[in-house]
């Protein structure tokens, strides 16, 4: 069974750093992209970007470029989303999902359970 397990709830202060993890199992990590999706206060989904497990290639949404860093650790089949200086506006639920790409474009399946990030002074 393909599973994506994310790290737990985070409460941070503005300016602090944070790394959220997404540990995968049940499939070949090197053969798929991992997507990161933001959802603020139960509202819409925002595609942040994708990272390829095989070579760490990254494609970032212009809306998030420079705001976060995506990385992977192939030894433990885990993807990461990292901030160096959090802002209150980063407060949201963050999901990772396996991005299945058979050709031009694809879909997200399955999704991690989400990591709730709250940034408040």
């Amino acid at each position: 069974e393909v599973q994506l397990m994310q790290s737990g709830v985070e409460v941070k202060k503005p300016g602090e750093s944070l790394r959220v993890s997404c540990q995968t199992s049940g499939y070949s990590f090197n053969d798929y992209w991992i997507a990161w999706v933001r959802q603020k206060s139960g509202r819409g989904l925002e595609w942040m970007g994708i990272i390829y497990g095989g070579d760490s290639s990254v494609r970032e949404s212009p809306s998030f470029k420079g705001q976060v860093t995506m990385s992977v650790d192939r030894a433990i089949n885990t993807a990461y989303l990292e901030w160096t200086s959090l802002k209150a506006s980063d407060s949201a639920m963050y999901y990772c999902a396996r991005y299945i790409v058979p050709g031009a474009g694809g879909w997200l399946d399955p999704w991690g359970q989400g990591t709730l990030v709250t940034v408040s002074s």
Partner: protein
Amino acid sequence: QSALTQPASVSGSPGQSITIPCTGSHTDIGAYESVSWYQQHPGKVPKVIIFDVTSRSSGVSDRFAGSKAGNTASLIISGLQAEDEAEYFCCSYTTDGFLVFGGGTKVTVL
């Protein structure tokens, strides 16, 4: 890349059929056969129900169907049931090589 346009809410009575439109442009929905739909119940994780415009994800009821005409994709739910009450998001691949989501549609079963 602007978000795809979905109605904020759609409602229907049990047993009825409803359609959720998702409007994009020639640089996303109109460019590829790569539209997916996600169902999210309150407090739960999104789940793919339709991919590649018309393909149903494993285990998804055949009451759910997807279609596309030009720059607009649609999710059709037939035989509406109480368990279908959820938020639905469309998603498309774009000519920039990104994905873009719709704003979401809340489905209410009356």
